[in-house]
């Protein structure tokens, strides 16, 4: 782990002060520690303590009050032999990979398309509008779409009916519902990612386009050979952020699922929640959460290696 994970702005040279007596240095730093105290307290009590506690809980038959006998690795065994866990694991992969792929391509396409629009007012307006859903909570977005997709009285089916399509059971056919989850997820963030790309496009050196034009390149070639390569770094940032998000999907499923589609849309985080707070198998739920945490860390390290975010 290195500090270079954070994009550092150009730092002005720090004037190094002559180091005085060690005690004086500490005394001088005292207010600084004071400023850090709440942060450190939070990290200790509400991040690291729970993390360590999780390891303990995951090896207990945990009750909120009362006996908490140690059961060794039994909880882990239960998780790994639970078909629901693997089912939810598969769902997470399917949903995750689909959301990543579509969610990666769509905003680039839209950004490039927006970039071709010459009317500034139109460009602005579209940009403003498609960015809206990113600000809304999943309760709002889920609520809107469940309503829109209802077989009777839903906007989408009403539009389909005009084309003579009979009502589609969007939220109660597990296979269809999966696609709904994927597309609504992409829909929510496409505008935001698109704006990041637009910011990236603005940052591309204009002289590259100038010289390409001198060489007689057409718009398509410009896009293909200058704009897209120029966005490579932005793609890395967006890609990395999306990958980190995939294993954390929770709110969307929590809001949009129903009993019929659950087997096909439940994900790892809903597994943890259901196991822990519905079934009250707290030990087993914690064990599964730790396994997921390990997946996450492996995935993070792997992708960071792969796309070298810090270069």
């Amino acid at each position, binding site marked *: 782990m290195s500090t270079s994970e954070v994009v550092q702005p150009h730092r002005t040279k720090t004037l190094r002060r002559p180091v005085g007596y060690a005690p004086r240095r500490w005394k001088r730093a005292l207010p600084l520690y004071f400023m850090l105290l*709440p942060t450190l307290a939070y990290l*200790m009590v509400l991040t690291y303590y729970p993390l360590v506690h999780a390891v303990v809980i995951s090896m207990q038959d945990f009750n909120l*009050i009362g006996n908490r006998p140690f059961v060794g690795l039994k909880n882990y065994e239960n998780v790994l032999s639970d078909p629901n866990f693997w089912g939810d694991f598969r769902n997470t992969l399917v949903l995750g990979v689909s959301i990543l792929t579509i969610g990666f391509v769509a905003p680039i396409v839209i950004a490039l398309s927006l970039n071709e629009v010459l009317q500034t007012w139109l460009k602005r307006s579209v940009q403003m509008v498609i960015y809206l859903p990113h600000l809304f909570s999943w309760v709002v977005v889920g609520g809107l779409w469940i309503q829109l997709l209802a077989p009777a009285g839903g906007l989408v089916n009403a539009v389909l009916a005009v084309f003579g399509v009979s009502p589609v059971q969007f939220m109660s056919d597990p296979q269809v519902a999966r696609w709904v989850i994927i597309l609504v997820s992409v829909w929510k963030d496409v505008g935001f990612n698109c704006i990041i790309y637009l910011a990236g496009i603005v940052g591309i050196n204009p002289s590259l386009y100038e010289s390409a034009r001198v060489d007689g390149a057409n718009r398509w070639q410009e896009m293909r050979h200058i704009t897209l390569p120029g966005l490579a770094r932005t793609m890395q940032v967006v890609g990395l952020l999306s990958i980190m998000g995939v294993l954390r999907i929770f709110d969307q499923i929590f809001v949009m699922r129903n009993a019929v589609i659950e087997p096909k849309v439940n994900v790892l985080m809903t597994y943890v929640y259901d196991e822990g707070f519905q079934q009250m198998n707290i030990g087993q739920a914690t064990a599964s959460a730790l396994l997921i945490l390990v997946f996450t860390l492996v995935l993070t390290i792997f992708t960071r290696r792969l796309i070298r975010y810090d270069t």
Partner: protein
Amino acid sequence: MKKSQLIALVSTPALAGLILGCATVPHNVSASTNSAGAAEVNVKSAAATEPTLTIAEGVIGGKTPQENQAFANAIGAALHCKVKLISVPSTDNYDQQLMTMLGAGQKIDVVYTEGSTLAELAQKGEVTNLQSEIEKSKVLGNPKVVPQWEWNNIKLSSPNGKGIYAVPVKYQGALMPIVRQDWMKQLGLSQPKTLNQYYNVFEEFKKKENAYGLTLSSLYDIEPFMSAVGLKNGYVEHNGKLTIPYATNAAVPVYAWLHKLYANGLLDPNFVTNSTADERNEFLSGRVGMFVYWDAWVPMLNNLASTQGAAASFDAEALPPALGPNGKGLVSKGDTSVFAIPSNAPNKALAFKFLEWWNTKPGEILGSLGVKGIDYTVSNGKYKLTSTGIDENMDHGDPEPISSEWKNPFPSLQKGYANARAIGIKYGYQPLINANWNNAEQIVWQYGDDAILGRLTPQQAVEEMHAALLKDKYISQ
């Protein structure tokens, strides 16, 4: 901002967190004994003044914290004590929350719960056996107030069927078809008795009223139609073996019938994901002509329709279930909702007094009409509902008290109830449910929905349903 103020502001929560964290973290096991000690102190000091009655509930009381407070005060005024109402939103698993509170050693005097959870609580010794007190009680021991069959239902939850661990909260009622009687009259239709006759009614509704005939909430409410083939909801025990009737071949004709409704546009296609609240809305707004719901809701629907501006002619009426060839019918009754007294309740005598009071007239008025001055007013012995009272529809946890001596002071607001209650009493039964049922039910619904939607033939659906239930050992054969 001054530096010192700022430091105080910033460091307080964090420091408090640290100190609390250090103090409590190593002591979680002893926490229960600590809180037990605290509660004893509480009782001692309370004895000098007024005791506090703590009630955990998910359905009684008003709509807002203020109303709940007024509701609690009203109980306190009647019983000469303080009342603390712990309201758990009925949304997510009240039962789990209750278990957590009891497990955490929280001191509660009265808990609201339902039959299936009561069984678990009684089994674990978490609640008190009230049988001898009930027998001695002038109120609860009176069969006119609580008829014997209610006690029999509650006894189903007692370990080995011995003892009575709870007192009913309300008359639970049954799920039955509720129809737009005004449409029936207008179209000159007579009361349907068989599945075919029901089908014709739906068809007329669609043709003439441009509405769906029926809406459902998945398979939650198909019992009045399964009734046509004499199948019960939940489990049935036969020679010590458990089966689920909905997952047997006998159910095939009903799934086929439901699929026919769906395919012909007579069944609301939203049925798979509908909540019962959705069903009510569709019914009230005239989008469907029939749904299946609680008897107590017949008058409530009629009242809502008139206060909320539904069609002027709106008239909801309960129907008997579809009858089998032998002329018999079935409607399922709700899981008994009850009050129980936890074993570690600090004020057991007071708690029991509350249970008695709840089944006397003042208690029944509070549980139905609500709080005097907020939900209703009385002048010269005549009751009048306020606008809040009208909005809340005379349901504060006990819309239809059990006692045969109970008379609702607003007979005009009870339109259709007598008929509905009679249907529940005539055809009602208590479904047999065990700890596996929630999971089993999900399987039944899943394949049942597939059959209705036509993704599977009814025959296939039942076969796969049966196989899935067998595989997960929810049934034994």
